[in-house]
């Protein structure tokens, strides 16, 4: 048996630091919103001429008076991602850009993807993203509140907040782009983290009923160990699947799978080191679960 409980306070401290640092990052550095949430135009461009590279593209685009233009390589050497604000929401902007690029590069490039999100739509998408995440947290709270005692709910929700905040913190730290698929990833993380916590909690509660003489400090450790092999296998297969998406699923899914990978790691960690320590700190005992049973 691994003594997970030996490190409860160490990891609580670590988690607190992680959360504080993430919050500071989110407040002061903020998130790098993509055009889905900020509005603007995105062009994925494939070049068939080696003359076309990041700097020549940047030169061309900067001459077009589009405001802040970002040009990046996308996946391999011939693919580029160009983003700009399109502040005035010009109508025929794509046409203009094409004529302009034709002048310097002829026909040696191809627009593989064009996205243009107006300011109204991006504001709405951001709003519905925030609502979706809040709603999912609220629903999880209600679900776990129905299924478990309040101490458990608190533990699970704290673990959830930790996972969401720290994942977003990592995205802020490395300025990774937040787009619609990241919201999907965050929601899935919420589901996954909850899933992981609930499995351990289920065992904790079962053990609470079984053993009246074991303190919660010990009991959580027993429960974590009993479910450990499941935790490892499920996390491993999920991570393997996600790794496959990250490495082979193409550039578009990179951000999504990265967020999910982080979420699964944090979710697994928080089930053990946050959810359970809340039970310990709240001195959950056999009485906690038996009282509920009486009521039923």
């Amino acid at each position, binding site marked *: 048996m691994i003594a997970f409980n030996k490190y409860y306070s160490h990891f609580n401290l670590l988690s607190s630091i992680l959360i504080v640092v993430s919050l500071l990052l989110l407040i002061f550095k903020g998130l790098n919103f993509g055009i889905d949430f900020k509005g603007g135009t995105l062009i994925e461009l494939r070049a068939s001429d080696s003359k076309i590279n990041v700097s020549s593209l940047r030169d061309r685009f900067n001459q077009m008076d589009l405001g802040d233009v970002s040009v990046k390589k996308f996946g391999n050497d011939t693919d580029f991602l160009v983003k700009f604000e399109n502040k005035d929401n010009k109508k025929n902007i794509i046409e203009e850009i094409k004529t302009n690029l034709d002048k310097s590069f002829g026909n040696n490039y191809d627009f593989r993807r*064009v996205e243009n999100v107006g300011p109204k739509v991006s504001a709405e998408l951001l709003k519905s993203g925030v609502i979706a995440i809040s709603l999912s947290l609220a629903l999880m709270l209600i679900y776990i509140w129905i299924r478990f005692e309040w101490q458990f709910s608190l533990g699970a929700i704290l673990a959830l907040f930790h996972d969401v905040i720290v994942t977003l913190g990592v995205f802020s730290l490395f300025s990774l782009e937040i787009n619609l698929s990241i919201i999907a990833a965050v929601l899935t993380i919420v589901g996954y983290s909850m899933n992981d916590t*609930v499995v351990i909690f289920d065992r904790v509660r079962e053990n609470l009923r079984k053993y009246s003489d074991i303190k919660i400090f010990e009991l959580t450790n027993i429960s974590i160990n009993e479910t450990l092999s499941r935790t490892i296998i499920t996390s491993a297969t999920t991570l*393997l699947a*996600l*790794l*496959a998406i990250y490495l082979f*699923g193409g550039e578009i899914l990179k951000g999504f799978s990265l967020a999910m990978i982080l979420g699964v790691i944090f979710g697994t960690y928080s089930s053990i080191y946050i959810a359970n320590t809340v039970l310990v700190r709240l001195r959950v005992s056999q009485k906690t679960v038996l009282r509920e049973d009486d009521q039923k």
Partner: protein
Amino acid sequence: MLYFSKLRILFITIFSVLFILIASSNLFKFDDSFFDKKINLGLDLQGGSYLLLEIDNEPVIEQKLQNLTTTIRNYFKEKNIKINNITIENQNIFFNVIDNDKQSILDVFQDENSDLNPYYPRFKSHQLEIEDTGLNIKVNFSKQGLIKLKTSSQDQAIEIVRRRVDEVGTNEPNILKRGNNRILVELPGLDDPMRIKSLLGKTANLTFRFVTNDENDRFGVENLKFENSLEEATVSKRIIISGENLLDAQPKMDTQNNQTIVSFTLDRVGAKRFGKATSTGIGKQLAIVLDGKIISAPVVRDTIASGSGQISGGFTFQSATDLALLLRSGALPAPLEIIEERTVGPDLGQDSINAGMIALAIGFMLVIFFMFVKYKFFGLITNVTLIVNLFILLGVLTLFEATLTLPGIAGIILTVGMAVDANVLIFERIKEELKDETNNILAFDGGYTKSRTAILDANITTLLAAIILFFMGSGPVKGFAVTLGVGIFTTLFSVYFIARLFTSIYVARNKDKEKLI
């Protein structure tokens, strides 16, 4: 728990085979229409264009208010009630009344069966709201009035949009209402939406009006710019004929001077009016105005009674074709703005499909290999279940002809990764049971019973996340929610029916085996 009746086995087999067959209809052609279904590929996979249009209702509201002032004025004139200084400001109509008439005016607006202020009998709310500030009365659209106005302009607009898109002839366009002032246009297979965008961006409001020098024209005048030059002309506001009078419009080559023109045919009312105007207006310039710009202003040389004519204006063949198309499909009730556009080229779509499939294959193999190494025979059971699960999932998606997107493929891969969870929970539980339990069959039973709540909880939480995502998410992300959500059900089915069937057979045959798992 261990026992599976023959009927149940039959049911499980039929169910699984059915869905595997449906899933395989994506690869083969079936004669039977029930099996011949295919998963729809989302725009991000097959390539295509997604356009979200917003109707700008401001001009419609202005126009309606303008008409209303005339209606109100005439209405009270008939009743011999005096109203003065009728003006429009910030989408409100203001007018002054004298004290004696005030009550009767208010009564007209507040009467439940008022013909000036309708809607009450149907919506329990009037079309217009009236606010009385002393002797100045303010009238504007009520909430209900605005909703009605917006939905009706949306109804008209979607009809016109459909006609224009159909005329261009893209395959299977999808045109849907969004809210009460938006229209969603999905154009599969279209990798350059430039032409459609420019066609949808035009209101195509066509009018024929005389150029005039008379500043005191009875209908008022306005200065309009020419489409192709910086010149201006003063044009009467009196409309001779408008786009509504057109029956047909076609691009043509004018053989005399080798110019591209648009020839048009008028309906009876239009032909009559056009004939009359051209007979009285010989020598005058008739301006052809499209969306507030003069295309051309030819001089009337002869009476045109045939009800057909032509528009010239330095067109290329393409622009003449487009103008003819716009005129044929009719004018939009209000300008449209493209507020969101997402276009994916077909080769990127194909690349995404390939990448998704490779990721799925590799993810699948990694998970299968891992499970086999970890659990040996039980791993094999899990793996068979996993394969059947994948097919059933594809089968369900095919049956409902769901739309598969790139995030949707990610959802399938993720389902593969998470689907082992339930089986692992069960097997681990059986292992634990075996520590105190010598009877293999009882341990097996215990494993299934005791793991049930955890499995249920775990899947419900993921399902909740998927449901929220389905309702809040848009486009490709919705596809992810669908595969993730459907995946949960197929996983539970395959775990509790297929995997359990195999496990029970194995346990029954090895009930005395020392090390079961």
